[in-house]
């Protein structure tokens, strides 16, 4: 039920923040999260656009193609904000081609806790690249981490294989290493690792950094570089997004089997995005809206308070939006003095959100390029959407009210 007092409402909204990201899945699949624009995220709540495999490929590929440096800068900046993003960002970061100097020792130890996970992951990768010896500290680690880490490892590792190791062996090592990650942070320096991959000098550098007070930035940087170097050549295999695919890709290196469709497809996208880096970045803008704030007005009415803001963000006439909402809900409503929409009937935020989403799909996003940057114009009774991004123009159907049954007392309706 919609919350009645403002405080509760806030709480509600906070919760929502996470949900909509998942929920807004109808939204332009291609216009999703681009790690290079992460600052947007905290501002707006429901992120329109899921992270699809394609998108992941796109972003990583984009980074691959040279946007990597920017991405990495962003990465470091935003490291402390959003953990979720991190995973992806890390992929980007990995691809940073040029090893930056160790000098960046601005320690952001405040946010250390937040960063732990990704950092560890990176370390794992690094570790693999170095072929470091497995540590024995299994106790601290949770399963979650293992799960998350394993695919990453595969990505990082499989491509990086320089032929020296056989994969099964590596995988085992990986697991152990993941387990050992926490220990690893401390012991990085002490390890007498059998480095089968000839990366010794870098490793030494890392060790120094790590030991030097565990500076977050510092450590990350180096790890990134490290990984980069290791993977630079083989990146196409790494960017696949899913752990399984990468594994598969890795399996190829030894065997002569045919490519599977998925592999070829992901390879195509990688190459495509590598060749056109702006493909991912231009469409990768996240479309976000504040969640509709719905409260109850008395027992039978709902108030949609921030419809003005939402309309503004969508660049649509409030009248059009209201019209759509009301016909979809099959009710009536009115706009009150302060620009809020009063809807007859009980509606929850979730429901209104659903309808808004449908509105966006139908009347806001460009059908051609999925960009939400469109204008709705009306010419001789026909509405057109003109896309500001790609310039396409298409007609959209007018909002038609269907059959609405008579609800309530007949007497009232007749008068």
């Amino acid at each position, binding site marked *: 039920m919609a919350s009645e007092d403002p405080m509760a409402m806030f709480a509600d909204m906070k919760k929502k923040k996470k949900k909509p990201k998942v929920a807004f899945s109808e939204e332009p699949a291609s216009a999703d999260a681009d790690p290079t624009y992460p600052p947007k995220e905290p501002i707006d709540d429901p992120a329109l656009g899921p992270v699809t495999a394609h998108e992941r490929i796109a972003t990583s590929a984009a980074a691959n193609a040279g946007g990597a440096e920017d991405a990495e800068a962003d990465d470091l900046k935003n490291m402390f904000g959003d953990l979720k993003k991190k995973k992806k960002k890390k992929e980007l970061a990995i691809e940073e081609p040029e090893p930056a100097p160790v000098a960046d020792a601005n320690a952001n130890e405040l946010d250390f806790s937040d960063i732990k996970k990704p950092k560890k992951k990176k370390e794992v990768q690094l570790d693999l690249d170095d072929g470091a010896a497995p540590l024995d500290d299994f106790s601290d680690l949770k399963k979650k981490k293992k799960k998350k880490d394993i695919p990453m490892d595969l990505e990082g590792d499989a491509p990086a294989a320089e032929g020296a190791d056989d994969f099964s062996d590596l995988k085992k090592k990986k697991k152990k290493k993941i387990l050992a990650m926490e220990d690893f942070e401390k012991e990085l320096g002490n390890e007498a690792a059998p480095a089968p991959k000839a990366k010794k000098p870098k490793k030494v550098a890392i060790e120094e950094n790590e030991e030097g007070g565990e500076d977050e930035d510092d450590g990350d940087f180096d790890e990134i570089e490290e990984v980069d170097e290791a993977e630079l050549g083989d990146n196409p295999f790494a960017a696949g997004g899913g752990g399984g695919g990468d594994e598969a890709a890795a399996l190829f290196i030894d065997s002569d089997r045919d490519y599977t469709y998925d592999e070829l497809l992901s390879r195509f996208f990688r190459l495509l995005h590598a060749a056109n880096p702006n493909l991912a970045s231009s469409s990768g803008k996240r479309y976000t809206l504040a969640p509709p704030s719905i409260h109850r007005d008395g027992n039978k009415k709902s108030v949609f308070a921030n419809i003005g803001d939402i309309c503004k963000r969508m660049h649509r006439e409030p009248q059009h939006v209201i019209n759509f909402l009301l016909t*979809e809900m099959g*009710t009536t409503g009115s706009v009150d003095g302060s620009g809020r929409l009063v809807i007859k009937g009980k*509606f929850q935020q979730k429901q209104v959100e659903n309808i808004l989403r449908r509105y966006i799909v139908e009347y806001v996003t460009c059908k051609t390029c999925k960009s939400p940057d469109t204008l709705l114009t009306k010419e001789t009774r026909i509405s057109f959407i003109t896309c500001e991004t790609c310039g396409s123009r298409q007609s959209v159907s007018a909002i038609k009210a269907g*059959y*609405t*049954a008579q609800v309530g007392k007949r007497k009232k309706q007749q008068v």
Partner: protein
Amino acid sequence: MSIQNLANPADPFDADNDDFEQTDSTKENYIHIRIQQRNGRKTLTTLQGLSPEYDYKKILKEFKKQFACNGTLIEDEDMGTVIQLQGDQRAKILKFLTEQGIHRDTIKLHGF
């Protein structure tokens, strides 16, 4: 042997010809499933735009039986015949129709 088909070719410009009329009207012929709030938690589901070649009465009967709800047929001047059911039967109707071979793309699900 004579070619039978040529004996009586369909005229595309013939206004009375059903075959051709259908093709250009199918574009707009969506089946709409709507929901309306009544008092309290109660709702109504309306099904509009079903092709008149179906027997509404039989469909309604089947709906009522399958969904365990009541319902009526409503003759609307503008919208034609509408099946109205008690309660939120949208998902069930959708499932029913798709299982009967009506393509999902021609069905529009409205409401929250």
